[in-house]
């Protein structure tokens, strides 16, 4: 069945997630949706499948409008969504999970085996042997995804949407998935696929639509496209790197050689990289999320140890130098949401010798310091005692930035410091980083926003799979060749 999105707009608070996006999805076609993080792919899919209700616009299935924002109705009409995050019950068996998707109503008597049979039959036609009695939590990720797919296919839905299905799969599992996608297409179904790996798209999709910052950039048959065009559509024209006068950095700075860092699960996240940081210079680290940026940033901030470092800045044992750290997720690592603005600032303020006497805090000085930061950084709050949770995203970020940069740090580590901010707030944060650098700080800016990387950083690296490459040699990595 033909599915048409017409002039869809959707905003979350001040964030415009989608703006007048239109696209046609045809039967017998694998249609890929591409875009960077935050481009609006998932929002569009949520609208198509009824999980989100758009502010304006309509969705037509074979010419008649579907009920917007009503997932259950959409499923009944034959639009199935396979979520990026599994919707399986780990404690249940395969059979029980498959039956769960088909429960007629809570009151009726059910036979699990009967309910699960259609899905298992579909599985057999795809060549998947599944043990109905296996506990889902014990299965490999790829097998769990098969279940997720079977749940959707058992109803013979004519429209099937896959939300980043390859993100969690091993290469051979990806091949297997694509075989299924092609088969669904050949059966005449409408297949929609969200992905951000260009190679995969080129190999499986028939048509591609690119979104950028909530807008529709282009749609075309895949035969008319190549990776270069898609990349350009996704990230826009590369800004001119020489837009900013180059800083003159005479100092050699701190050089790190052969730095290796482990991630949370003990995997090597940063692999023997070498670079230097110089005072008065902003060094940008770009690349797709999850390629070791956070681990490297945490190492520089003194939060995560390195497992090997061939040579690096010499420090006295136990010495922690003042680092201004702006962590990636302000609501998780940056701020204690239930504490007040002043208390969140005091996280850094209590380190300052002038704010304490012995074990005691000098409450009046801390308050004056916090009030001053609120003024200087123009943070919109009713007062220092307001809970941080009540602040807008931009003002929350200003709390993080203000406390970090207030005391002229010698090193600033910032991870996606402008993510989720509106233009004005983002510009403010960038200006603050620049002025910290002008005052002699070495700034390490980790960002997935290419625009920001080229506009703000004096020197650029790209991170990919834990490796570091200088930006001039990294053209081929644009658009996310790895994740």
């Amino acid at each position, binding site marked *: 069945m033909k599915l048409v999105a017409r002039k869809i707009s959707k905003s979350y608070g001040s964030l415009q997630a989608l703006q007048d996006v239109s696209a046609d999805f045809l039967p017998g076609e694998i249609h890929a949706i591409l875009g960077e993080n935050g481009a609006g792919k998932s929002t569009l899919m949520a609208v198509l499948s009824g999980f989100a209700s758009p502010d304006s616009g309509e969705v037509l299935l074979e010419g008649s409008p579907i009920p917007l924002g009503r997932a259950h109705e959409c499923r009944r009409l034959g639009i199935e969504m396979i979520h990026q995050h599994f919707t399986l019950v780990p404690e249940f068996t395969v059979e029980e999970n498959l039956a769960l998707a088909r429960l007629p109503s809570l009151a009726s008597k059910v036979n699990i085996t009967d309910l699960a049979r259609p899905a298992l039959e579909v599985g057999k036609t795809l060549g998947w042997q599944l043990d109905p009695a296996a506990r889902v939590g014990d299965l490999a990720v790829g097998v769990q995804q098969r279940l997720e797919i079977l749940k959707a296919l058992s109803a013979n839905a004519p429209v099937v949407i896959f939300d980043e299905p390859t993100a969690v799969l091993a290469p051979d599992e990806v091949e297997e998935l694509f075989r299924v996608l092609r088969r669904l297409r050949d059966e005449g179904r409408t297949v929609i696929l969200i992905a951000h790996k260009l190679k995969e798209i080129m190999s499986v999709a028939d048509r591609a639509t690119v979104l950028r910052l909530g807008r529709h950039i282009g749609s075309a048959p895949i035969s008319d496209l190549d990776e270069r065009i898609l990349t350009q559509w996704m990230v826009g024209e590369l800004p001119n790197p020489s837009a900013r006068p180059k800083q003159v950095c005479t100092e050699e700075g701190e050089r790190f050689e052969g730095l290796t860092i482990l991630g949370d699960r003990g995997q090597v996240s940063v692999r023997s990289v070498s670079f230097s940081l110089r005072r008065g210079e902003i060094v940008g680290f770009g690349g797709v999320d999850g390629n070791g940026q956070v681990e490297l940033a*945490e190492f520089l901030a003194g*939060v995560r140890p390195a497992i090997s470092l061939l040579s690096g800045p010499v420090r006295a044992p136990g010495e922690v130098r003042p680092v201004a750290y702006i962590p990636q997720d302000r609501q998780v*690592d940056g701020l*204690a949401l239930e*504490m007040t603005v002043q208390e969140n600032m*005091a996280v850094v303020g*209590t380190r300052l010798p002038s704010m304490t006497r012995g074990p005691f*805090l000098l*409450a009046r000085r801390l308050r004056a310091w916090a009030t001053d930061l609120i003024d200087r950084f123009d943070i919109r709050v009713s007062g220092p005692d307001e809970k941080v949770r009540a602040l807008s995203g931009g003002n929350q970020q200003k709390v993080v930035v203000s406390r970090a940069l207030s005391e002229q740090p010698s090193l600033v580590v910032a991870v996606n410091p402008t993510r989720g901010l509106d233009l004005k707030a983002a510009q403010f944060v960038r200006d603050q980083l620049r002025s910290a650098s002008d005052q002699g700080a070495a700034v390490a800016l980790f960002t997935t926003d290419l625009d920001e990387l080229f506009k703000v950083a004096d020197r650029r690296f790209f991170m990919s799979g834990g490796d570091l490459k200088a930006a001039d040699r990294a053209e081929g990595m644009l658009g996310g060749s790895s994740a």
Partner: protein
Amino acid sequence: MISALKRVFGTIAALILLLGVTLFVFGIPVIEGFSLIAEGAGADKFAWSRTLVKATPLLLTGLGMVVAWRGGMYNIGGEGQFIVGGLFSAALVPLLLKSGGAQVPAIAIPLLLLLSAVGGAAWAWLAAWLYVRRGVDVVISTILLNFVAIQLLAYCVTGPLRARAGDVPLTLLLPEALTLWRPDRQMDLHAGVLLALLVAVAVAVYLFRTKAGFYVRLAGESVRVARANRIDAAAMRIQAMLVSGALCGLAGGIEYIAMARQLGTGFSQNWGFLGIPVALLSGLDPMVAVISALLFGALFAGSENLARFTSAGPTLIYIVQALAVLGVVALRSFLSRRGKKPSVQAK
């Protein structure tokens, strides 16, 4: 603070209602029952003394809960820490008597109290260590350690600390000279009441005016934020448990040297458990905890009077206690559900 007081007095109103229903069910004339409770809690100086003396262990164990919970450690082990605190003090007494230290109360009494705090802290440390090293849920370990403490107490009073073999299982009676000072021999009111009040102020200063207290609260709010700022959240949580255990242990020590003077198997009358509703009702604010401890103290003193003069008997005391705890917990979840709605919309 205003909203905290509102909550406290709202709870009092709700409790009075509940209590009225209970009295009715027990067949006690409701008005008469209330006047007996009020009499027992504050009719004269003796009643006031009883209220204050009961509020004291409640305040200290309540403060213990406040500190631990502020640090994100859900310590339910106040009872065990209270008992071990009393035990540590009691274990010192034979030594004091033998060495002649009992002759110098000015040294012996602080030493006894200090030891009780150390005992409580040590007991709480076990749970903290299990949590930090092995990830054992504090709620579970502290509850289980309560039972271990109760058995430890039973062992000590029937074994090594027993005053005389063959007699009732009790420890040596604490010499009169080593008990806490009382302004009036006829009343139970003792210096521990004042000490508990001072401790409440100290806990407020600790939590809100010291670096360590601030980091404890931060670690309680968000381990991730603490980590990103190079603050050792595990160490802060251990500290919260140590302070919490020390406060509960001190409660046990005061109860021992001011009131009980010897330990038996029934040493603690649920003081550690009753600290939980005191802390909940205070909204984890040490100064409001003073008020909520007084409220519970009055209620218990009053219900004793009620039990004495009616046919219902001492069982009624436990029913009143249970009602108070349930009432506070229910009211709290009701209020927090109501309070949550606007914040969701604001998002």
